[in-house]
């Protein structure tokens, strides 16, 4: 006889949610940081429009929403997994009947919930403070695309979490994710970046992630299928790196 997996998933998700919420530094940062960045870099241009009629405010808002979701994933998993390894919680869980897949799924669900809240907070801020107007359907489209497209950043988080120790993980996450976001046009439109960065941008996962959001508010972008293919490819690459690090640790700790 075994316990029902759905019950385990529910309990595990609740526990992750509580744990995540109580690390105030993380939950506040992941919700507030995109708003702060948008206030500095987006709000001044909120009422302008691009020559093709697309709202600059909406464009920048969804850019920072994309940054925020990636942030939740890369930091949440990177630091979370590294901490669990550091505190040897993984050893405690390993001896229980909890399937590792259920534990991972619970983490992903909680991260998606946090990401959802971070997008909604930012959109509400942009609408109320910045006066940015889009149809509700557009906002919903943005939310759905950003959540669905976030998987490469989940995988990147796992790769960092299994590679770095608890002290190195935050620095490594910063070192990877911040330049990635800048170079992909999530802070400033790609057209305003230095020339060599513009050349690199189309090869970065966050650039194609941004495309999902930009095309949702009407900006000219690559076809959806191309974005999704790039994101899927990066998910596979990051997962492979994560699995390699995970296996190496398995051998070291448990073989």
């Amino acid at each position, binding site marked *: 006889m075994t*316990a029902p997996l759905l019950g*385990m998933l529910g309990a595990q998700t609740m*526990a992750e949610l509580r744990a995540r919420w109580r690390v105030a530094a993380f939950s506040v940062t992941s919700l507030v940081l995109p708003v702060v960045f948008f206030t500095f870099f987006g709000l001044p241009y909120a009422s302008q429009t691009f020559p093709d009629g697309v709202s600059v405010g909406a464009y920048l808002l969804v850019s920072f929403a994309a940054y925020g979701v990636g942030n939740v994933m890369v930091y949440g998993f990177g630091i979370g997994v590294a901490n669990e390894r550091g505190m040897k*919680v993984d050893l*405690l869980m390993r*001896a*229980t009947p909890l*399937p590792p897949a259920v534990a991972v799924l619970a983490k992903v669900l909680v991260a998606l919930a946090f990401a959802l809240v971070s997008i909604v907070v930012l959109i509400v801020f942009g609408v109320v403070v910045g006066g940015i107007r889009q149809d509700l359907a557009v906002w919903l489209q943005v939310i759905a695309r950003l959540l669905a497209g976030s998987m490469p950043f989940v995988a990147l988080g796992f790769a960092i979490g299994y590679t770095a120790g608890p002290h190195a993980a935050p620095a490594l996450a910063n070192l990877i994710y911040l330049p990635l976001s800048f170079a992909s046009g999530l802070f400033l439109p790609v057209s305003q970046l230095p020339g060599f960065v513009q050349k690199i941008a189309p090869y970065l996962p966050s650039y194609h992630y941004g495309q999902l959001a930009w095309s949702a508010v009407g900006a000219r972008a690559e076809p959806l299928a191309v974005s999704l293919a790039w994101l899927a490819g990066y998910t596979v690459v990051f997962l492979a790196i994560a699995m390699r690090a995970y296996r190496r640790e398995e051998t070291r700790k448990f073989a």
Partner: protein
Amino acid sequence: MSPDTTSVVELNDLTKRYGDVQALRGITLRIAAGEIVAMLGPNGAGKTTSLSLMLGLRRPSSGDVRLFGLPPTDRRARSRAGVMLQESGAPGVLTVRELIALFASYYPAPLPVEQALAMAGLEDKAAARVATLSGGQRQRLYFALAVGGNPEALFLDEPTVGMDIEARRAFVAGIQALAGAGKSVIFTTHYLREAEELATRIVVIDRGVVIADATPRALMARVAGKRVSFTVAEPLPADAFAGLVISALDVSDGRVRFLTSEPETALRRLFARGVEPRDLEVAGADLEEAVLSLTRRPEGA
């Protein structure tokens, strides 16, 4: 096979090598339901490795492991086993109650959280965050997590290390209650006293092999019960100790020390061989010393 006839644990000629270190050299062991087994031995004897293999936390280099007749990583097997490990950690931001409830959700028929709290003596700390617990309280928490799933068998690795006297007392009472309820308990320890007090069976492991496997009473009868020591003026004849049933022989600075269960016989033989003991002392060996004598190779054997 019905659960009643399935062994809790079956180890078949198990070996385990870590790099150059041969941690287990062929362990065969069958533990039946309802047994309270102490795995006793000095540090590095292979106790923790044996336990890790039983639970599928590590893979054997050779040999076969069954937990409730299944591979030990099988969820059905793990659902029947509660585990308390050395050196594991716990998520610090959850409260004691929350963590126990979470672990309970992993098992098919868990205990009510309050009962697990009570068994570990943690009622006062139920609302405390795990990170704020002392070492002893943390150890009790791990015990609560192990029993909270209401498993048929408990596997405890050095459970009383770091426990204060009070926690230890609660722990002993907890084990006795579990034994009374027909659970199996397998624990490692290097304290003979603890093994004797709790176990129905003691498995002594040394350097990766089982060197004794008996009830506490039978084991006590086997171990050398007296410590004999004396001084000799003249060098001992080369074959002075040949054929004597003694162990842990130590000759230094003219002082001879050994353990034996038959001090009279040993001394009579020594006299007959011309040894003249001076300043003779015969005292009850303490139990640790006695079992340690088992874990060393007996002299002349």
